[in-house]
């Protein structure tokens, strides 16, 4: 493995306050009431009518810059990982960058790899920082996830985002020790151009996609870095529901006690590109310096990255500089299905 000289200088997250209970969705569409429990989803966050990936990403980025203590003009690249771009053609990254005062002298682009695009942005950022092509980069993972009304995906597809400032080792809240990526062509979940909602391969999304890719990425990290499960204090996996992360963790030898602190999907839903990163952000807000975190995002299509990340003393001075994940999980405005349908623009009507 190439020696990594990069870390997480700052982090921020944003979860909209609106919540719909999974039991309300199950009731409306006539699902077995046990269905949400079977995948462990209690409720999910819903973006307001005037929110999208850009506004969510902006808010998370603002908090990430506060924690990083970095001037916006020091950011040399802005990447937005999302599968819910407000524009098909027009970057989200440039709007977020301009609205934060980031200098025009930068790289900026939106990346797409289902829920894993922001993780790809982390890997690119490591390269930019390692080669000193950028002092700091801003990585945004944000989505307003789509789900066809009545599809089982509707239980979990939610809205939220996380932003990371990636920089050198000085002043890093967490140091990225090692990383490994495992990517193949696997048709488990897709959305065609102009299609409003994604299609998915039902059970096929599990074994050959989620489990196969995460397990191979983590095993690759272990083999090349000489790690074993006991070397990690926390394990955060992509969390399409509450059940899969515990299952993949068990297959890799992680007890649930190391997974539960970073498992947020049961309470806010799957924020797609924010999913694993939200759990990671929560752990940065709770872990002791010296703790080692396994982070393994996953994206359909399919691919997974595994990172070994060690928390430093700097995390303590940064935590209170912005709202925490748990603050936003606990901030709730409950809505019924009718309001949810309005907010997610699922009501067909004539527009003036």
């Amino acid at each position, binding site marked *: 493995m190439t020696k990594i000289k990069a870390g997480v200088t700052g982090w921020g997250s944003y979860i*909209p306050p609106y919540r719909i209970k999974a039991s309300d969705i199950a009731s409306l569409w006539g699902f077995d009431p046990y269905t949400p429990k079977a995948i462990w989803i209690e409720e999910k966050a819903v973006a307001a009518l*005037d929110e999208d990936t850009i506004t969510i990403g902006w808010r998370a980025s603002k908090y990430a810059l506060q924690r990083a203590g970095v001037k916006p003009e020091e950011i040399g690249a802005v990447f937005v990982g999302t599968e819910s771009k407000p524009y098909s053609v027009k970057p989200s990254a440039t709007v977020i960058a301009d609205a934060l005062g980031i200098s025009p002298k930068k790289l900026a682009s939106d990346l797409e790899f289902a829920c894993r695009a922001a993780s790809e942005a982390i890997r690119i950022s490591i390269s930019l920082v390692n080669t000193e092509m950028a002092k700091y980069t801003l990585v945004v993972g944000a989505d307003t996830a789509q789900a066809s009304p009545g599809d089982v995906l509707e239980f979990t597809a939610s809205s939220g985002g996380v932003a990371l400032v990636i920089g050198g080792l000085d002043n890093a809240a967490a140091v990225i020790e090692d990383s490994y990526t495992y990517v193949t062509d696997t048709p488990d979940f897709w959305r065609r151009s102009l299609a409003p909602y994604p299609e998915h391969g039902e059970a096929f999304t599990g074994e050959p996609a989620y489990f196969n890719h995460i397990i191979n990425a983590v095993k690759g990290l272990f083999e090349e870095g000489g790690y074993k499960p006991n070397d990690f204090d926390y394990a955060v996996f992509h969390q399409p529901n509450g059940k899969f992360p515990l299952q993949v963790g068990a297959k890799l030898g992680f007890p649930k006690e190391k997974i539960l602190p970073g498992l947020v999907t049961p309470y806010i839903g799957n924020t797609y590109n924010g999913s694993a990163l939200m759990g990671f952000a929560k752990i940065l807000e709770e872990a002791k310096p010296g703790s080692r975190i396994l982070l393994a995002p996953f994206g359909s299509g399919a691919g997974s990255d595994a990172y070994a990340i060690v928390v430093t003393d700097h995390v303590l001075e940064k935590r209170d500089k912005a709202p925490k994940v748990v603050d936003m999980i606990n901030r709730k405005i409950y809505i019924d299905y009718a309001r949810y349908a309005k907010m997610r623009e699922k009501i067909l009507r004539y527009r003036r």
Partner: protein
Amino acid sequence: MMFERSPAKIWRNRDVLYRLKYSYCRDCKRSFYPPRGRCIYCGSSNIEHRYSSGRGVVKEFTVVYQTPVGFTDMSPMVIGLIEMEEGFRLLAQIVDVKPEEISNGMKVEAVLRRMIVDGETGLIYYGIKFAPLIEKS
């Protein structure tokens, strides 16, 4: 700030709309928004442009049910008079809080939100609204 569906005007004003750029008068030491080249209080041109922290408090507010075309989906809309930390005041929409839970003196922070979406194919216009400050644990 009034929102006009003009890409050129929005582009020219993006610092004002996205980042709350305001003016500070070096002579009378007062701030105002939107920024101008001459002080609205003393007429001085000894002006400095600055960016707001985004933090403020609600001084007054009203709930609008008869919303104008383009904003009907947001009804009921809460419009507040916000006093910023830097001393200037502005009118803006307050979001993410039930009208009955808003009170004068409530702490708010500036948030980037969609202002107007121009039909199915036009531009999405972004700007600053205000949301309750998230309480930190």
